[in-house]
């Protein structure tokens, strides 16, 4: 080895600095995730859906929206997709924005494209808010059960037992039936649906989080943090939570998919978001009456729901594979 080479060698490896892994956690994650083509497809569709819901919100709301989902043109009802409007029978303000009915019109002559755009936002918020509620409750309950489980309440029952019994009780209810009952009894509103779906689906997350906390609590790094006098709050949120979050993320992604399906099912049964607001579920539910004359009213929202839910499921499964070190080695 010549002198110059040795110098270069020493410059490249400075041993007094800590040898951190070359790639950050995110890069590692992305490298693994990239190999799963279906999951990438899911992520791509999910971003597309997110953007179109966001754009749809801007284009369809306000007093004078670009695409008016509530504009009724009875003379133009049940036009098939890509039909040209009959310009002579329409007022100038009734002419569709793109001079074409991109996805056809429904039985009241409303533009299905505008209604789909409006409905995308509803599906998105129902999915995210419902899962947000259930994840928050799940982390809270599971964290308490796992971390403070040993504490006794009034000397008879431990916190852990109490919380897990509550979970058992909640699991006894048939979930869709329970949601249907509560939504039917409460006044119809989109917020009630989100809250009810969230309140009836936190049990799985609680169990995951509790199991993770139970095992992580005994690890050395938690003992070290305790020895340093770190507060319980900081141990839970800075030290344990980042290590316990992976299964929660996976189940949340898949939870969004099932929340969107639940909302669509409720809308279909007539308990969903009240009209005139369009959701994919109630476009489909209205369309079923014209299933032979106007199949696009069934197929467009149906396929849209299918694609979005599928993308969430594929993305969630991809996440599960990447975040699970056991599967990683085998694959």
């Amino acid at each position, binding site marked *: 080895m010549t002198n110059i080479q040795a110098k270069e060698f020493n410059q490249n490896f400075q041993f007094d600095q800590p040898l951190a892994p070359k790639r950050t956690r995110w890069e590692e994650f992305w490298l693994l995730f990239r190999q799963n083509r279906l999951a990438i497809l899911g992520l791509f569709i999910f971003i597309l859906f997110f953007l179109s819901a966001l754009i749809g919100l801007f284009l369809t709301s306000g007093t004078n929206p670009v695409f008016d989902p509530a504009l009724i043109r009875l003379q133009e009802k049940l036009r098939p997709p890509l039909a040209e409007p009959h310009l002579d029978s329409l007022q100038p303000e009734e002419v569709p924005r793109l001079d074409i009915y991109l996805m056809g019109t429904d039985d009241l002559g409303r533009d299905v494209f505008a209604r789909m755009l409006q409905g995308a936002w509803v599906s998105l918020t129902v999915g995210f808010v419902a899962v947000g509620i259930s994840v928050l409750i799940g982390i809270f309950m599971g964290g308490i059960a796992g971390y403070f489980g040993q504490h006794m309440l009034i000397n008879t029952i431990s916190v852990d037992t109490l919380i897990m019994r509550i979970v058992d009780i909640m699991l*006894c209810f048939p979930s869709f039936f329970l949601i249907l009952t509560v939504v039917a009894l409460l006044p119809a509103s989109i917020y009630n649906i989100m809250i009810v779906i969230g309140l009836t689906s936190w049990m799985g997350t609680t169990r995951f989080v509790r199991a993770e906390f139970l095992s992580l609590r005994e690890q050395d790094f938690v003992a070290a943090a305790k020895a340093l006098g770190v507060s319980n709050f900081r141990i839970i949120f800075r030290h344990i939570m980042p290590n316990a979050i992976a299964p929660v993320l996976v189940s949340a992604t898949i939870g969004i998919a099932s929340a969107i399906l639940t909302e669509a099912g409720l809308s279909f*049964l007539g308990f969903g978001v009240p009209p005139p607001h369009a959701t994919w579920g109630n476009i489909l539910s209205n369309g079923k009456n014209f299933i032979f004359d106007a199949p696009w009213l069934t197929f467009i929202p149906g396929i849209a729901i299918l694609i979005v839910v*599928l993308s969430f499921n594929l993305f969630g499964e991809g996440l599960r594979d990447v975040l699970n070190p056991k599967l990683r080695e085998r694959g």
Partner: protein
Amino acid sequence: MISFVGRSVVQKTITLFFVSVVSFLIIHLAPGKPSQVDPLNPKFTPEMVERFQKEFHLDKPLYVQYIYFYQDLFTGKTVSWKDNQSVLKKIWERFLNSLPLFIVGTIFTWTLSFPVGIRSAIFRGRLFDRSATFLSYLLISIPGFFFAYILIIFVVTRFHVPVIGMETFGFVNASLPHVIMDRIWHLLLPAGLGATGGVAVLSRYVRSQMLEVEGQDYIRTAWAKGLPPEQVHYKHALRNALLPFVTMFGLILPGLIGGSVIIESIFSWPGMGRMAYEAILARDYPVILTVNFVSAVLVLAGTFISDLLYIVVDPRIRL
């Protein structure tokens, strides 16, 4: 063993008690009263409302109502508010209608998902596995009612077979084989639809169990001593992979009563799910509460049976 049974019976009874309290509270604390169900009906005078309330103890405090309700339920005297029929009798009739749907659906689920799951585990990463995986994601993600309509359109336009209801309306004087065929046609679609989600989930589960076992050391040993592949897969691997599924027989019990509200309403199938849906629409509290109670009992009994089966099947589990 006996102590385990005793402990879980006590525990499950306590859980059941709380379930009954919670469901009672949910129903009765929700805004709106059952006596106001039809305010526009001119026959609904205040006197009638009062009589209605007296009849069903609605003027008493909540805990008294609770005791009255469950007293009636256990003595079998609960009546529906809508038509004064015995609730248990009503549920039993609807249950008999749902039963064929449930049995056929379960047979579909269990006979389809095992071959698919085992095959995709053996041919992991090949074309069959990948298409089965994608197909099962598709089946999980498709909204049940949308899929139902696709199938209805397909069957009606292709085979010209009506599929709504339990039997074709006015189909009385036909010969026996015709009646049987008619029944089977009507049964096939809703039962198949009820099974789609189950097939997708269960076949994925079979696959992962099978993969788990195939990675064990004793499978490598079996390969190493030169056993034929069939023997390795079906004798050594499959037997151990089947263990967890024995316990799932207990967990399908709740499906007996849950039915599917959506599928039964699409096909106008007079089963449990649809009765529950109609009861919700009519605010028929006794029916809603009884359905809820019976399904909670089935869930608890199901987990209990699956725990017992696990002990019986797996000698490694000691209490």
